[in-house]
Each structure stands twice: as structure tokens, then as C-alpha cells.
């Protein structure tokens, strides 16, 4: 029998690449099987949705024009003239939202299982940076269609940044590319969105994944490692389950994108009054709504300044948790952390709902 051509190709490659090492690296990791194993999947879902963003984003780039006069029209062109353009745009928009949702779920699951504790502090830090970058993707992408809602939401959002003492104003001008939200802002956001953020994100993603692969999955503290702990190899068992879930996510995404196509709205006009119903994307809603409840003046400070500073401090403390949660680091149970996390989740959900009701 003639040696199979694929076999020969495989050997040819193997001689040069030495697959064995790679496979050993991939198979080294074992995923523990226990009652909380479900949460191990959300990182992978986030990764999958990011890949979708990159692919659909690059497709959109072929027609999108990041310019004040053309942006809105180019997206209308994508949606009406380009074959399946409406679908690609709708998927990019829906997947953006699902990706941020998945990232939040992933982050909270890591939080509650205390997987940030030694030796995974850097994994947690890189993860938090990626979560903030994802919010940056969302904020910058939201402006790209240059419609009324996005225009005023960006004005409000960047104005809030400006209230931070000392550094607020320079950051605001940096973000806006000038004093006001104009075409210059659109050009900048476009550059952030399609080049700067993806570049930085990819670096952190690489470190994050490398660490996960090297350190393996952590065990939740409640689960006492027994000698005969049930595990499954990451490669191929867990990966195949991952792929199955990705397929399900892709289907959900397709259903959402087809049944609820993303809208385009009305083109932004800097010389028209702000329309009613200006609101940020849902993942900024809880912060936005909080600012509404803070009185205009607290003691000698502007209410907004206090609110924004509180959120910044909370974000920093949250990001640094592996370094101040000493109890968990010593391997003791720290219920305070659980209550804190629960409080944050309930707060976010409650204020988001209030934001949509008002």
C-alpha cells in the first residue's frame, strides 16, 4: 500500500516542529471535576467571543469609514448593500455584549472560588486588566456608528472623566482629541478600537493563558483535595467540552443576531438638541445610575467628583484583592470576601434595573 500522503505530511512537519513536546505541554494540565466545575468554562467562552470579535471586526473594517461625514453612511451601506453585512454587524454588536457578560461571570466565579490566591495573583491581575480593556472596547465601539445616542452618551461619558481632580481634564482632552466631542474624537476612538486596544489586549491574553496552562486549574477552597480527586485531562477531554459549549454559544449568538438585528438609529448632529433616552451601554449603567443619586454637593466637593473617585477606589481595591486578602492567602476561610462579592453583585443588578426603569 502506498504510504498515506497525510501521514507523510505529518511526519514531515513533525520532524521540524516536534509535536510531542507541544502535546505534552497541552496534556499536562488536568481539570478537577467537582460540584463547581461549571465555572471553569466561562473563561473559555469569553475567549471564544473575543475571537468572534476579532474576526467580525476585521470584516467590518473592509467597509467601515472612521470619519465624521462617512461613518454613519458606511454602516448603513454595510447593513443595506453588503451581502450579509447586517448579520456581521449584528453579530459584532451582540457578541460584544455577550463577551462582557461572560467576562463578568468569569471574574466573579474566580472571585468566589478565591482562585486569585497565591500563586495566581498575576493571572487575576491580567484578567482584571482585560476586563477594563473590554469595557474600553465597548465604550469606543459604541461611538463608531456616529449616531445620536452614541454621540451624546460619549459626550456625557467623557465629561464624567473630566471631573476627576488634576488628571481628569488632560485625560478628557486626550480621549476627545480636543475640547469637545467631534470628528477628531471619532478618529481617535476608531484607532483605539481597532488597533491600540486589540494590541494591548492580545499581550495580556497571552500572559493570562500561558499562566493558566503552566499553573493548571485551582481548586475552590471548600473542596478538600483528596488523594483520589477526580480530574479530567485538559487535552483533549476538557477542550472537546469547551468546543461543544462554543458551538452552543455560537448558536445563541446567531439566533440573537438574526432575530434582534442591531439598530443604527439617527445620524449624530452636533447642532441638534440631545434626544430623550440617552443612556450608556448596560455595563456602565450601574455607575451612571449611582451618579444620579449622589447629591450635587457633598460638603465642599461636587457630588460627581465624590462618586467617580469612589468608583475608582473600589475598582483599584477589587483589582488588588490578592494582595490584601491575607486570610485567604493563609488558607483560611474569609467569609467577609464572600459577603463583599455578594454585595457588589446585588448592587450592580439593583442599580442596573433602576437605571432601566427610570
Amino acid at each position: 500500500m502506498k504510504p498515506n500522503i497525510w501521514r507523510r505530511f505529518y511526519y514531515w512537519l513533525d520532524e521540524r516542529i516536534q509535536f510531542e513536546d507541544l502535546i505534552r505541554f497541552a496534556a499536562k494540565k488536568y481539570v478537577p471535576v467537582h460540584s463547581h466545575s461549571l465555572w471553569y468554562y466561562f473563561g473559555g467562552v469569553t475567549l471564544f467571543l473575543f475571537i468572534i470579535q476579532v474576526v467580525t471586526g476585521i470584516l467590518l473594517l473592509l467597509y467601515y469609514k472612521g470619519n465624521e461625514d462617512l461613518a454613519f453612511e458606511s454602516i448603513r451601506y454595510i447593513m443595506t448593500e453588503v451581502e450579509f453585512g447586517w448579520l456581521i454587524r449584528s453579530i459584532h454588536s451582540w457578541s460584544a455584549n455577550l463577551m462582557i457578560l461572560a467576562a463578568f461571570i468569569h471574574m466573579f466565579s474566580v472571585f468566589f472560588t478565591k482562585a486569585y490566591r497565591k500563586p495566581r495573583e498575576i493571572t487575576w491581575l491580567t484578567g482584571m486588566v482585560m476586563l477594563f480593556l473590554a469595557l474600553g472596547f465597548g465604550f469606543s465601539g459604541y461611538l463608531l456608528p456616529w449616531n445620536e445616542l452614541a454621540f451624546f452618551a460619549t459626550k456625557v461619558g467623557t465629561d464624567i472623566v473630566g471631573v476627576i481632580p488634576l488628571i481628569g481634564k488632560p485625560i478628557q482632552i486626550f480621549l476627545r482629541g480636543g475640547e469637545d466631542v467631534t470628528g477628531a474624537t471619532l478618529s481617535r476612538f476608531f484607532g483605539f478600537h481597532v488597533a491600540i486596544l486589540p494590541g494591548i489586549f492580545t499581550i495580556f491574553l497571552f500572559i493570562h493563558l500561558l499562566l493558566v496552562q503552566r499553573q493548571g486549574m485551582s481548586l475552590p477552597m471548600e473542596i478538600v483535595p483528596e488523594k483520589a480527586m477526580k480530574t479530567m485531562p485538559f487535552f483533549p477531554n476538557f477542550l472537546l467540552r469547551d468546543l461543544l459549549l462554543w458551538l452552543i454559544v455560537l448558536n445563541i449568538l446567531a439566533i440573537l443576531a438574526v432575530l434582534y438585528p442591531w439598530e443604527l438609529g439617527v445620524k449624530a448632529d452636533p447642532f441638534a438638541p440631545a434626544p430623550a433616552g440617552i443612556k450608556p451601554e448596560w455595563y456602565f449603567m450601574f455607575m451612571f445610575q449611582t451618579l444620579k443619586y449622589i447629591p450635587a454637593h457633598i460638603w465642599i466637593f461636587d457630588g460627581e467628583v465624590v462618586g467617580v473617585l469612589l468608583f475608582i477606589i473600589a475598582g483599584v481595591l477589587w483589582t488588588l484583592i490578592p494582595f490584601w486578602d491575607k486570610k485567604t492567602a493563609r488558607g483560611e476561610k474569609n467569609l467577609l470576601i464572600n459577603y463583599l462579592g455578594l454585595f457588589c453583585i446585588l448592587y450592580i443588578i439593583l442599580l442596573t434595573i433602576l437605571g432601566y426603569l427610570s
Partner: protein
Amino acid sequence: MNQSRRSFLKYILGGSLIAFIGAVLYPVIAFLKPPKSKSVEISSIKVCKVNDLPNDSGLIFKFGNKPGILVRTPKGDFRAFDATCTHLDCTVQYKKDMGVIWCACHNGKYDLNGRNISGPPPRPLIPFKVIVQGDEIFVSKQL
């Protein structure tokens, strides 16, 4: 002797490294800062004809590169303001049914003298001067 030579070299090398990084980063950071826009400094502009604006209505106009609002009160007086809401930068509009200048973003309200009367706006709108010459309305900055 040897020790101090070593630390001398360390400072020289460290210093050059920092200077080198600075020389690379400075232009990049300076590039990120948008140039001061040569803003069209205008002090006065013709908005419209008196008959274009009926009593009890409002109009947004371009004042340089910012929006302004011209309001004609129910009695027929003209008032003009910078249309930028003092809260978070949205553009206000005249709301006929409430008789106020209204900001849709967070439901801020100003009376027809531009005073913030309800909602989050912390300050009054910046007023402009209105001059009616014949049948034409001019708006200018207040000095």
C-alpha cells in the same frame, strides 16, 4: 577602587538607559496630545429673521463650533444662551409644554432666564446678548 568604578559604570549605563527611554517616549506622548484647535473665535453672529421664530418657541444655532439656543418667550422677547448643559455637556432644547429650557439627558430644567431650576445642572446656562436690528436677530457674547 574597583567597587566605585563599577558603581560609576552602573550610574552611567542606568542614566543613559533612562535618557534613551525618555527620548523614545517623549515624542510618542507629545504626539498623543491633540494640537490646540484654532477655534473659530466669533463674537457675534446673525441667527435668523424675527419672523422665522414664532412666540413660545426655540431654535438651536451654530455659535462658532458650539451650539447656542435662541428662545422666543410667550410674550415675544428673545433670549439666547450657550446651549451646552452645565451638567454633563448635552445640548438643551426649548420645551414648550413646560415653558422651560430642558435637557433630555438627565431631565435638567432651566427657566427662560437660563437659571437652573430643577434636576442635576449645577449652574445657570451662559447667557448671550440678543440684538434685534430691523427684522434680523444678532447674537453676541456678553462681555
